[in-house]
């Protein structure tokens, strides 16, 4: 059988290296590499008809599995082990879409283009690896591999306070990674598993006692939660987003935030169900706090980018709520919302970047009535905003609906709280559109024109995906359910 997943990894690795070396041709190499990767992922998606199912002892199996020994000493067995199920495949698809969109959007990057495109590819390589890795060490390795390129993307291409933001991002997420790693090691050693392989951990880890599971789950929740980000560990996010260049923000919001949620599903919820059961109230509380805090603070923002950043905290709170439910419906909705938020926040960060280039400011109050002058850009602002507020027939709606429906099963009337917050979210996006797009013209430079065609192209791709998957969400849902959550209530 073809080592499909390694071929995809090799594609990204080769494109990254070639891009670093190709000087002023970097953007062409990067585009070629990312398009090849997207085509490969689409082929993988087309060939993914049936998930491998549960093996002996109820241990989930994975499609296209590969296992090679890596470190093997008497008490420590580490493998290069990869495999996919529906959940990881959808997120790999998201990675491929955002990679192409980011490369196209930053087509005219002037500052060290070879370095820029190479680091963008490297970030996506790390994310891809996280989604397919089935071994603790390999998972952690890719997890950390995302940090370093992102540190440079923010710290070298970012805004005025970029160095502070890059350092804060690095330190917050690195400390969290360490807690995550020690918790995963403890899962392996306390359960007495034969190796660090997910499939060999599965049985022993689920058999751990309740107290052990609770402690381990807490460690993992903190480790993954900072990446989410959950309140109160979210403060790195607005800083990182505001200072990051547009492409960096797109990857940060679109992919990096998904790593935490994916890790929580795969390595905490699947391995430690008893721990989740005992800690669910805490997770609900944190999730609702993030939802409320994210959207209330977003309401007070004047900077378009900061607003989108805070609304990310809100959306990821809904993802956490759905994961905490721990049901088949909840996790399906969570993964769908992760995909949706990945595309929508990417689009919104791109439009804020383009607004900034076009009008010289991102201050919502400083510009108004831009529609007659830049109709294409304001259409895209509208698509992004409407998708983000959860308009039916756009991608976020089925996901948020599913998440709240799943939550209703567990927390009943408390669901009203996030539901009311959705109204607030809708309000601030409507208000935003009213002020920026339709009000009386103000703050518009005389020689203003539409953003360059490559920026519009990148944003249009994302807008098309928002509509496509909004109208036919079953395209994604039927893939997501092809995973171990089939066996869940």
């Amino acid at each position, binding site marked *: 059988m073809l080592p499909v997943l390694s071929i995809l990894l090799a594609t990204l690795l080769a494109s990254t290296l070639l891009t670093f070396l190709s000087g002023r041709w970097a953007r062409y190499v990067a585009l070629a590499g990312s398009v090849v990767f997207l085509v490969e992922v689409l082929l993988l998606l087309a060939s993914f008809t049936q998930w491998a199912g549960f093996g002996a002892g109820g241990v989930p199996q994975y499609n296209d599995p590969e296992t090679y020994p890596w470190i093997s000493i008497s008490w420590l067995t580490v493998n290069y082990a990869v495999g996919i199920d529906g959940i990881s495949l959808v997120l790999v698809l998201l990675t491929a879409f955002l990679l192409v969109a980011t490369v196209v959007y930053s087509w005219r990057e002037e500052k060290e283009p070879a370095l820029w495109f190479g680091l963008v590819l490297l970030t996506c390589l790390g994310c891809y690896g996280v989604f397919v890795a089935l071994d603790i060490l390999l998972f952690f390795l890719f997890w950390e591999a995302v940090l370093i390129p992102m540190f440079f993307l923010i710290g070298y291409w970012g805004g005025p306070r970029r160095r502070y933001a890059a350092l804060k991002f*690095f330190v917050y997420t690195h400390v969290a990674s360490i807690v995550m790693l020690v918790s995963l090691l403890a899962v392996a050693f*306390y359960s007495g598993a034969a190796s660090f392989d997910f499939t060999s951990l599965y049985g022993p880890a689920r058999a751990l006692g309740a107290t052990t599971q609770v402690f381990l789950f807490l460690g993992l929740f903190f480790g993954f939660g900072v990446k989410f980000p959950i309140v109160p560990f979210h403060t790195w996010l607005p800083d990182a987003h505001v200072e990051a260049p547009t492409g960096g923000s797109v990857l940060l919001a679109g992919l990096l935030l998904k790593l935490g949620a994916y890790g929580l599903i795969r390595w905490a919820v699947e391995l430690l169900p008893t721990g989740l059961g005992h800690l669910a109230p805490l997770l609900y509380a944190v999730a609702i706090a993030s939802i409320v805090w994210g959207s209330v603070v977003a309401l007070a923002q004047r900077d378009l980018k900061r607003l989108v950043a805070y609304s990310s905290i809100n959306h990821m709170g809904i993802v956490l709520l759905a994961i905490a439910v721990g049901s088949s419906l909840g996790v399906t909705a969570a993964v769908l919302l992760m995909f949706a938020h990945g595309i929508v926040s990417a689009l919104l960060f791109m439009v804020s970047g383009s607004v900034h280039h076009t009008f010289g400011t991102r201050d919502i109050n400083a510009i108004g009535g831009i529609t007659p002058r830049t109709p294409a850009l304001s259409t895209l602002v509208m698509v992004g905003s409407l998708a983000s507020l959860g308009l039916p027939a756009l991608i976020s709606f089925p996901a948020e609906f599913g998440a709240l429906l799943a939550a209703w099963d567990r927390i009943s009337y408390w669901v009203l709280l996030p539901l009311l917050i959705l109204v607030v979210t809708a309000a601030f996006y409507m208000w935003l559109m009213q002020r920026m797009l339709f009000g009386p013209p103000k703050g518009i430079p005389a020689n203003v024109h539409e953003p360059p065609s490559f920026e519009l192209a990148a944003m249009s791709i994302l807008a098309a995906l928002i509509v496509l998957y909004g109208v036919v969400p079953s395209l994604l849902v039927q893939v997501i359910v092809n995973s171990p959550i089939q066996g869940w209530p």
Partner: protein
Amino acid sequence: MDPLAYAPEFVVLAAALLVFLADVLGVRRLEAFGGIATGASAVAFALVLADLGTPVLSGLSTLPAGVLDAPLGPGITSFTSLGLVFQAIFLLAAFFVSLASLSRPSAEAGSAVFFGLLLLATLGMLLVALSADLIFLLLAIELASISTYLMVGYSRKEARHLEAAMKFYIIGALSTALSFFGASLLFGAYGGTSFYGLGPAATPIGYPTLALVGYALLIAGLGFKVTAVPFHAWAVDVYDGAPTDVSAFLAGGTKKMGIFAFFLVFLAPLLILGHTPALGPRGFASALQLTLGIAAVLTMTVGNLLALLQKEMKRLLAYSSISQAGYMLIGVAVASGPAVAGATFQVLAHVFMKTGAFLVVAAVASLGVGPLIEDWRGLGPRRPYLSLSFALMLLSLAGVPLTIGFVSKFVLFSSAVQAKGPFVWLAVAGLLNSALSVFYYARILKTIYLDPPAPTDAPAAVPAPAAGIGWGRGAAILLITVGIVALGIYPGPVLSGIQAAASQFVFVGG
């Protein structure tokens, strides 16, 4: 015993004598002395690897059959796989430093002294790794130590080198006194000083307090050698004041013999005597283990906290070296086969990372860049290869994946978690410290890559890229960088070898 078994030691000794002889005969070229030292350490390295049973080199092995990892007897030397692994590590450090030192100014005064003493210190370290007797061990440490005191002050010109040498000597003498006093108490308690008599063949004693005091004094005496807190203060002044190549050897090489000495002296009371019923349920092992654990945590924490405050590159590296010693002491405190393997791999990693880092500092200083961290501003774009090497070394020290430093910390901290119980806290302390250390490593990376060079001193601070660092130094840095990445990506065979050696180590297996 067949004298050929000591072939690596003889090679190094002969090379040292050859260097001094050539100096007496009027040879004045640094390249000649450096060539001898580099060649001798490479040959001895190959011989040690052959003795360890490396497939390609096995024809070179001079070790008689059945000698390696034989049960400990009352002799003064013994051949253990773990000892040979440490020998290989010491020789690697000596090789890197002598290769890099080939790029020192050709007519430099005192170069024969430098290379001769480097070889003699290496000889002392090799003998440490063969020790089977406490007195022999302490004498071998003395041979290495006295050579290094002189190396620090070999140039005899700069006052700060001499000051560092003096400080190093006085502290070293104190440490020796403490160690020998501890050894004499152990002699009183057990009636012998061979590790056989202190371990497997220990006679039940009536004075456990005496032995405990003896071991406490040895923790202090050997603690100076590995820069364990609170016996660490000298290290910063000495590493800072010494010529940078010597600092590379001290941090990457001689400090590591202290770790092996810790294994030799303390694994027996922790693992063997601890199970002697005459000494109570765990003997005094619990007290020793607690002391060593606290020393490990203190060492890494103090080292890291003080490193955060440093403004000079060499002082920062010295403090980071102290914190790394703390990680290695975890292996001594946990005292299990996996932990010994983890600590040994950490020692190997540290040779690459810290020797490499000091060699880069020497290279950058030779380009005319000042000693402060902020003098390195904007070095990244101007010296891309040198900066990339340094960045990889720092990332490795910080424990970032795909570097050897990640693998070593991963194995070491895993071994602490694997031992479960209270040892998990050692892993947590180690990991929190790794996180803390990221602050100052990231700050250096930021200075090198993100900060613009200061406009006023730019021409003086960073000369044109044409200025070279010398091929010897370049080759050493390249080899180290390749090693950091290669062993970070695929540690398999080396790690398996170290694990096998650790699990066969006399005190662990016995």
